[in-house]
């Protein structure tokens, strides 16, 4: 007779808020989505982090113009509009004129003048001084290259914006599924175990950076996705409610658009408009003006004026060409929809608290880039742990991840010597070569170290090349600040590329 085996009842497991089955399903979806969009999300996050310093990079790239720290006076605004219009006429591009002035909240210390004729395609871009006089044409090809890569991946504009918007949706979805597949959210809240198992290290980094930075990541991703998808959404909205006229739909959100009357008319007195707003809102400062169909009877002025204490870059005030007010956008104190519209851009780019917020945005943006990178390395480590390693994919991912900073640094060097078209080609070529090198090397770790050293070398070359080019002509101290920051990044890369324990070994050697 067989003895009866008594089995003690298992201790009752604590009921979890999210069931293991639900979490496993979410993890499967999170993993699939992350892998499918990883490369795109990584490139958009990395270039977005760089783009936070767009204005500083512009000053570094063209430092022979002194910064303009103070907001423009009403007279200076009037002068720069007249000067911009005269130059636009000379360049046969006088159709739409856009001027943006200094804004401490955004860290902007320049006066930009842009004009273009969308029919002929002619356009021009200048920098002006504090008195509103044009100084020189802007030449910031690398900054334009990086911001364009971030916004549309250098694809045809509509498709590029849509693809980046879709990437934003995928990232948003990953944030949601990542949160729902993390039942140990509070239990692991402060873990960062470094140097043991690679999978555990990457998982800790991925989860800690992702969870604590969640509010920032959510806001930046949501605003970016909305900006990217706005054309598509407004297109469908126009079909439903505006007889298919997207212009009319945009106008209902962004304010009055210029009329079709092409009869010649005087250039608007924007200085008087600035004074008019300041009379109603003492302390308001000029930030930008956009004049559609300038010099025609149908012209409309969108004047950006900022008052302190708001996240929005500025409120927009609308005027006819003859100075008749047409209301305002309510971006600072209007309804909830208007205020959301006003904060989308500053919240996405970190343009609301000067350099302190920009540095915090760089830290949090870099964190999101690392979260994306480690998302893939966790998957690769998991495969390795389960006896199904994917060494080719490990090397390819290293080539893509570390190849991007190298490609960006090399393209910046190219921008100093060659044409604008060469920047994109050099970026693509270096990206490909980095992938190839990483793929051909025996181990992913070797490729990772080599590419980090290559990036440090490229940054050093960039600092030297930039210094040689501008040392005698630089009038803007930002040139040296940015170069110093790049040097710090290069040093950090070299340190990170040293073998683990190198410092400890040398310290022991010194003691002995």
């Amino acid at each position, binding site marked *: 007779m067989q003895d009866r085996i008594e089995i003690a009842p298992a201790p009752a497991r604590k009921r979890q808020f999210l069931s293991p089955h639900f979490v*496993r399903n979410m*993890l499967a979806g999170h993993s699939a989505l992350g892998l499918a969009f990883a490369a795109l999300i990584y490139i958009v996050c990395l270039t977005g982090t760089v783009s936070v310093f767009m204005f500083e990079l512009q000053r570094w790239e063209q430092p022979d113009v002194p910064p303009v720290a103070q907001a423009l006076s009403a007279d200076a605004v009037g002068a720069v509009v007249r000067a911009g219009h005269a130059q636009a006429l000379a360049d046969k591009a006088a159709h739409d004129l856009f001027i943006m002035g200094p804004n401490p909240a955004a860290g902007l210390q320049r006066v930009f003048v842009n004009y273009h004729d969308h029919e002929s395609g002619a356009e021009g871009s200048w920098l002006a001084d504090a008195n509103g006089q044009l100084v020189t044409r802007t030449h910031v090809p690398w900054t334009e290259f990086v911001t364009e890569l971030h916004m549309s991946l250098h694809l045809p504009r509509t498709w590029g914006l849509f693809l980046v918007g879709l990437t934003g949706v995928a990232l948003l979805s990953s944030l949601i599924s990542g949160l*729902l597949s993390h039942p140990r959210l509070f239990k692991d809240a402060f873990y960062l175990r470094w*140097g043991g198992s690679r999978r555990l290290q990457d998982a800790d980094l991925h989860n800690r950076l992702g969870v604590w930075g969640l509010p920032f990541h959510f806001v930046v991703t949501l605003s970016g996705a909305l900006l990217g998808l706005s054309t598509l959404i407004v297109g469908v909205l126009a079909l439903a409610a505006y007889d298919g006229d997207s212009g009319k739909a945009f106008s209902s959100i962004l304010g009055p658009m210029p009329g079709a009357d092409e009869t010649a008319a005087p250039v608007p007195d924007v200085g008087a408009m600035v004074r008019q707003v300041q009379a109603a809102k003492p302390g308001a400062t000029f930030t930008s003006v956009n004049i559609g169909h300038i010099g025609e009877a149908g012209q409309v002025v969108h004047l950006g004026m900022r008052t302190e*204490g708001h996240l929005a870059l500025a409120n927009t005030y609308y005027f006819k060409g003859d100075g008749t007010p047409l209301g305002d956008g309510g971006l600072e104190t209007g309804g909830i929809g208007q205020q*959301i519209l006003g904060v989308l851009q500053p919240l996405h780019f970190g343009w609301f608290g000067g350099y302190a917020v920009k540095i915090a945005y760089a830290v949090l943006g870099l964190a999101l880039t690392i979260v994306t990178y480690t998302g893939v390395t966790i998957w690769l480590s998991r495969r390795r742990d389960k006896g199904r390693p994917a060494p080719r994919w490990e090397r390819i991912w290293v080539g893509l991840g570390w190849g991007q900073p190298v490609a960006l640094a090399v393209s910046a060097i190219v921008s100093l010597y060659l044409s604008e078209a060469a920047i994109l080609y050099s970026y693509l070529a270096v990206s490909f070569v980095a992938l190839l090198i990483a793929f051909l090397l025996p181990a992913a770790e070797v490729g990772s170290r080599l590419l980090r050293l290559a990036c440090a070398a490229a940054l050093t070359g960039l600092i030297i090349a930039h210094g040689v080019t501008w040392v005698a002509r630089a009038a803007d101290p930002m040139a040296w600040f940015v170069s110093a920051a790049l040097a710090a990044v290069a040093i950090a890369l070299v340190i990170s590329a040293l073998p683990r324990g190198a410092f400890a070994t040398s310290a022991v050697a010194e003691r002995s």
Partner: protein
Amino acid sequence: MDQIAAFATPLLTAAGLLLFLAGIGLLRLSWLGKRPRNLPFLIGGWLVIGAGFWAFFRAYDVEVGTAYALIAAAVIAYAVIVIGLEVRQPKVQRVREVALEPEERPSNLWRATAKALLSIVLAGIAAIGVGVAFAVAMPLETHDRIVVGGLLVPILWGGGMAWTLSDAKLLRATLLLLCISALGYGIAFLPKVFV
């Protein structure tokens, strides 16, 4: 008094930063301890963090203060985590299976294509339908309904993507998304058809 007022913003900012540091530090102490002895640290930590938000609200008002406070709290939390870094010896070791693994699912080209179509195309169509229906039909000011409707699109699309990719039953997700799309576009376009 004027001098105090001039220093109020930087003082309140500094106070907010210190309160966040103290609050997150208390949460970390609570995390290191065991229930129920750690409860005072847990409750105290959240209260101190709340006080940090209050300091930022006083310094910058709620609109700007919220943005500054959330950014500051995130960066300080990163710093606290880095300070608590646990360095381990580099060695190959088995990871304790404390974390759940993704569900292993049969995968083939047909299923992957169907999932991609569902999560990217159909979820997108449904999300845009709901967003546009909101923008057209909600009894709100023009800006409010259009902007909030627009914001709903990426949120719903992202949520729909997360759900369709995690749901193993393709038919259920397809039917539900089709129903949502029909409802959304119906609300958005039917008034136009009947006018």
